[in-house]
């Protein structure tokens, strides 16, 4: 039975400078990031024959080709709610459709929050999709109008179900910020967060503290994937992709899966983890480092439990005790909210170039989509 296990590897990573506000366009950031990823891998930009991006940011591949001089593309796709970019990239390369496929993001999360106009969007009457209409029909009339509010709704239920105290919840961000303090790129964390700072942090929407929310950042990030045997004779140590997977669940929405049987279980992440470990042929115990979705810190414990890294209700204590290194570059809380900066950190751990290098870092787990459609990756030396 064919499988994607070990067939592909991350051969190059490209990261533009992080900025809290740049004049440069998303087009410029995407172009530079992709060029840096090709240089890092040691291949010619012209040899890139696949481009994958998120629908919410950056410029689609026809723009990015104009600056990269790529003659033709054999693969392109855009991820949207419920789809996984990395799984797209892996199936493109593993199936022999394309040789070198780059997943790129370019986002000006710090400067503007407007959706990228790269896709054709007509205004209000043609709303994005049925999930946006659910939000407008059932949540916004009652003032639940922000993702922070939705995350707080999950956090409140979780802390109630397992009797978690704010002091225990503080352990999540305190642990992550200790790694952030050692990473010069983490613009938002120059020193670790203290318990006082955490407890005195304002709550725009209780019980979620503002310090628990990842800030936006302007940056371009590109991940270049090729076949493992090709990656072996390129410039960098290949980060072999043991498995990639995605998870969905009935009644799942985007941070608002209220009609799931137990929303704090994160069933999408549980479904994804089951397939991720099955394909990789390992269990949660074999993970040495984890890069989890910390757009909202209180969702990290729930994600750790859903990934089987610890038991139900033990997530906050697990993160606080740092029994497993989590977000070793300071995560989104430190570097700003862009999922793929945690893929870059996972690759650094494989190459041994992290600012908080974990010495026995053999198998690294990356996961995204806490509280919604999930996306995961396991990579190794």
């Amino acid at each position, binding site marked *: 039975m064919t499988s994607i296990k070990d067939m592909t590897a991350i051969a190059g990573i490209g990261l533009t400078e992080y900025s809290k506000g740049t004049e440069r366009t998303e087009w410029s950031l995407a172009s530079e990031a992709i060029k840096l990823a090709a240089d890092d891998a040691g291949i010619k930009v012209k040899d890139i024959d696949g481009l994958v991006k998120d629908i919410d940011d950056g410029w689609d591949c026809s723009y990015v080709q104009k600056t990269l001089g790529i003659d033709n593309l054999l693969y392109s796709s855009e991820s949207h709610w419920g789809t996984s970019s990395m799984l797209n990239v892996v199936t493109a390369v593993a199936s022999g459709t394309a040789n070198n496929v780059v997943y790129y993001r370019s986002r000006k999360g710090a400067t503007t929050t407007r959706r990228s106009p790269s896709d054709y969007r007509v205004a209000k009457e043609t*709303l994005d*999709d*049925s999930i946006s*209409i*659910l939000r*407008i*029909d*059932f*949540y*916004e*009339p*009652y*003032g*639940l*109008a*922000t993702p*922070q*509010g939705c995350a*707080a*709704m*999950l956090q*409140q*239920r979780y802390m*109630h179900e397992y009797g978690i105290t704010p002091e225990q919840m503080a352990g999540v961000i305190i642990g992550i910020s200790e790694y952030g303090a050692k990473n010069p790129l983490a613009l938002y964390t120059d020193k670790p967060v203290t318990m006082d700072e955490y407890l005195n942090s*304002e*709550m*725009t*929407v*209780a*019980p*979620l503290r503002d310090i628990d929310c990842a800030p936006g950042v302007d940056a371009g990030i590109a991940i270049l994937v090729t076949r493992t045997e090709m990656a072996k004779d390129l410039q960098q140590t290949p980060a072999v992709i043991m498995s990639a997977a995605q998870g969905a669940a*009935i009644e799942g929405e985007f941070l*608002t899966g*209220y*009609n799931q049987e137990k929303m704090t279980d994160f069933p999408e992440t549980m479904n994804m983890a089951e397939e991720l470990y099955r394909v990789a042929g390992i269990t949660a115990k074999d993970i040495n480092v984890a890069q989890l979705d910390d757009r909202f810190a209180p969702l990290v414990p729930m994600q750790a439990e859903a990934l089987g890294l610890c038991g139900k209700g033990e997530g906050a204590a697990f993160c606080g005790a740092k029994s497993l290194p989590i977000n070793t570059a300071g995560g989104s809380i430190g570097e700003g909210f862009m999922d793929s900066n945690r893929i870059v950190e996972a690759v650094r751990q494989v190459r041994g170039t992290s600012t908080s290098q974990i010495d026995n870092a053999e198998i690294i787990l990356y996961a995204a989509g806490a509280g919604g459609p999930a996306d995961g990756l396991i990579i190794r030396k």
Partner: protein
Amino acid sequence: MTVQYTDKPIPRPALWGIIYRSSGSLWEGVKEEKFLIQKCKDCGKILHPPRPMCPACHSTEQEYVEASGKGKIYSYVTYNKSPHKAFKAPYSVILVELDEGPRVISNTVDVKPEEIEIGMPVEIAYEKIDDELTLYKFKKAG
């Protein structure tokens, strides 16, 4: 009335979409102060939010039944700073688990933010916002 509104327009259900119209009957019922929930005619499964097909048996025949309106608070948040110009902070948003199963987002009418607790029994109440919009809300039960 624990949620204070400003004079700005309050966000209201879309209902006219060509993408998703299934929640139309629910909102018609709310206008007549009845809380209707969708039920699959073939297998009896309660479906919320309303949708065109039953995920259990794939029947496309649904009916609407009136819910008792009773439930318990399942979770809640309190906005100390208002994210939307129509709402005055502080206000609370509650997630109520109805006795029939579905969980719905709403506001309380007679419970202040600091008094709200998970598990508190509540009962449906209706609040007419303007002539096109009536919202289902919840008051303390019993």
